[in-house]
């Protein structure tokens, strides 16, 4: 039996009358790759922040690797959890080489200047994974949006975490790069036993790669396993009535496209 990596019980966040997250329950085992979908403002990024320990939930508990989150020393936790936030949440004007950005993900990066802060081999390995090793010395400011996103992903991977939390990692990537990214993430789960929770908007793009999809709109309306069709009423509960639902053959989870004519 695989070890439990994430265990969330009755997690709520925000005001009692209109919580951002409401009674979330979720269990994930090692090597599981889960996608989270939901409309804007559904609480997807907030859920990732709660799992990363960045916000304090109003009630409920988060356990990582069988231990409550608040019992972890920050240092031990960060060694095991990788985090990639949304693309726009970084300062674009700082002069930095690509490898410096990746180094920021190393466990000892913020150490005093007299201490070794990173391992160059680890940094290059992470850049290899996202196919950016040849641009290691390039100025980060001069990269395209897609290249920046891949470098930021390398920063999340550099410590080889056991749990990876990704908020829209495919933003700014073209469809070919998106597929390669999802294939890389799939292999990290299958080959290295990494557990990944990934927020995405385009369910059609991820169905072939993920083990399950959680449909979130303040609460988890449905947690569909690979091969399972998401019922129509779940789509409507998340996105309202003006969506058109079509069958999708890639992973048989389901697919939704908001369309004008369906209104």
């Amino acid at each position, binding site marked *: 039996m695989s070890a439990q990596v994430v265990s969330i019980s009755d997690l709520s966040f925000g005001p009692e009358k209109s919580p951002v997250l409401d009674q979330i329950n979720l269990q994930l085992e090692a090597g599981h790759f889960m996608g989270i979908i939901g409309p804007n403002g559904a609480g997807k990024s907030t859920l990732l922040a709660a799992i*990363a*320990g*960045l916000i304090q939930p109003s009630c409920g508990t988060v356990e990582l690797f069988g231990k409550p989150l608040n019992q972890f020393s*920050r*240092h031990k*936790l*960060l060694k095991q*959890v990788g*985090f*990639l*936030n949304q693309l726009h*949440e*970084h*300062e674009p004007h*700082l*002069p*930095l*080489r690509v490898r*410096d*950005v990746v180094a*920021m*993900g190393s466990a000892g*990066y*913020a*150490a*005093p*200047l*007299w201490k070794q*802060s990173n391992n160059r081999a680890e940094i290059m390995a992470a850049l290899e994974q996202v196919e950016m090793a040849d641009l290691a010395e390039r*100025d980060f400011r001069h990269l395209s949006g897609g290249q920046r996103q891949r470098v930021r992903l390398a*920063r*999340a991977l550099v410590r080889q975490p056991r749990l990876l*939390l990704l908020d829209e990692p495919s933003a700014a990537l073209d469809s070919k790069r998106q597929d390669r990214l999802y294939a890389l993430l799939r292999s990290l789960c299958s080959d290295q036993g990494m557990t990944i929770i990934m927020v995405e908007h385009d369910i059609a793009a991820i169905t072939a790669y993920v083990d399950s999809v959680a449909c979130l709109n303040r609460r988890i309306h449905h947690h569909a396993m690979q091969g399972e069709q998401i019922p129509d009423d779940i789509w409507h509960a998340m996105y309202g009535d003006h969506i058109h639902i079509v069958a999708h053959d890639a992973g048989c989870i389901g697919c939704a496209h908001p369309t004008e004519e369906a209104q």
Partner: protein
Amino acid sequence: MEMLSQFFASHVMQESLAPALLISVVTASMSVMVLAHRLSFLTVGVSHASLAGLGLAVTLSLPLLPTATVTALLITLLLANIPKKQGITDDAGIGMLFAGSMALGVVLISTASRYEVDLFGLLFGNILTISSSEMQWLSLVGVLILGSMVVLARGWWSIAFDPTTAAAAGLPVPTMRMLLYGVTGLTVVMCVKLAGIVLTTGLLVLPAACAWFWGRSLAGLWSLSVIFSLTGTLAGLVISYQNDWPSGATVVMALCCIFIISWGAAWLKQRVQKHKEQE
């Protein structure tokens, strides 16, 4: 050459050179963080607000620099704790405190007529009149600031790039920001002796701004910033000695010239690179 040898032989310049270079190194180091965290307006606010500390020192017959240092530190920490959730933004808070503290300083200094106050020196700096006790105080504060940079620079750099991921990586972001504000406040007070309340921001922004065109890493930026700052300070002091100009203003003018040269050179380099790529 003769002028240079006269400069180095001058007793006043010999005494002011060491503190000026110390201030130059310290402010250049912190200026990297000031630019990275977009704290330029904070330095304007704290430097002007430190007039309240100077006014307090004059009124209560307290030592000028230590009193100004403590006041600046308190004002900076107050700025760091402005209630942003209630809609008061950083710049509005700085604007209010800056005006209020400066008004208090002006009132205090104007009522303390029995003391002789070098208002021109306070506003525009006068490194030539530094006393040995002030030098000791500057050295102490300088060591504290450089020590903080050595210990915290990477963390501050990481927070400047992406505070959310820095927090996820285990950095205590609010505490480190508070420390950054505090150390910036201390640096501002150091600058006041050389450049005065009005020109302090020049010393805290220009060195890193000159380096920004060329540095590609924290270490590179830091080194270049110090080199530009030392060059500007030395050139400024020599020119001020030669022409009998105010030292602080001349140093800031020299740094402005270096910035324009650096900017022009970076623009030229970019043009040449583009030209080569087109070929």
